[in-house]
């Protein structure tokens, strides 16, 4: 997992698969999701309930807890934003 987290490209691909698997998105492949596109509304079309499932998945996989809704909104802005959020969280955990 450390190797994936340390590579932005690999992490974005991992996250796309995680989003598709967690939310059981049909007819969508990782290639259909752009790194910078919004995960919500105009982008992938997710909503706040989908975000709940992703919050739980991220905690389970990366051991990073998203307790605050505003933090969640920023983290779920795009796949790239989520990757940066996870990398930051991982670095913070290493320092502690």
């Amino acid at each position: 997992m450390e190797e994936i987290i340390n590579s932005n490209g690999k992490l974005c691909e991992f996250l796309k698969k995680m989003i598709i698997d967690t939310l059981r998105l049909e007819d969508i492949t990782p290639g259909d999701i752009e790194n910078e596109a919004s995960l919500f509304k105009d982008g992938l079309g997710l909503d706040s309930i989908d975000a709940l499932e992703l919050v739980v998945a991220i905690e389970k996989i990366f051991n990073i807890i998203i307790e605050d809704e505003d933090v969640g909104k920023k983290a779920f802005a795009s796949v790239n934003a989520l990757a940066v959020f996870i990398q930051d969280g991982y670095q913070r955990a290493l320092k502690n």
Partner: protein
Amino acid sequence: MEFKHQRVIVTGATKGLGKAIALSFAGKGAWVAANYSSDDQNAAATESELSSLTQKHLLLKADVTSKNDVDKMIKSVVEQWEHVDILVNNAGIIRDKLLMFLDEDDWDRVIDVNLKGTYLCSRTILKTMIARKFGRIINITSPSAFTGRAGQTNYSASKGGIISFTKSLSKEISRLGITVNAVSPGFISTPMTESLNQDIKCDLLSRISMRRLGQPEDVAEAVLFLASAKAGYITGQVLGVDGGLI
């Protein structure tokens, strides 16, 4: 209805309705975690009864109004049993007084135990239920929430809040495989109702279409139904168990 290997937490489980609910689940094969706040003697008696029904049971002393206590309680169950399938938010108190004499502590305590406790336990359990895409949350409310009752402004408000909470939460999480419902018991035979004087008892009975008090087991059956696979498409509802309360 069978609940083999299903993990259940019942709050306020060592007396009255909560105890009947906990024992009913245990009798149907569930693993039962019985929460209580302070009465160690009743807790020990309940544990003894649970142990005669199931080997898988836990006794959890925790104040449902304390986030720290609730976090520890749920964490402890998940660590031992991996997950929780069913949460019954039963813990509740009354402090009946006419509003003119109802002080702030009477108000806060009833709202805290009945409503905040329901919020804290539900919120804390959500992650384990969302992760498995399955869960049943059943909250205990009261007819007092619908009709009001003199001397129960605090209790009625807390139970009305539980109904609104139930309906709103059901809209948030039912899509994730978690149903949220409430049971509203009417006048149930308990040591308290048994000790009422004859006039009050007659008045109570005249307000029940069936002309008899309910039994704790009547309420437990309704809770078990809402927790069962048979109720998989029922969410955001309040099931009255009151013998036709007028």
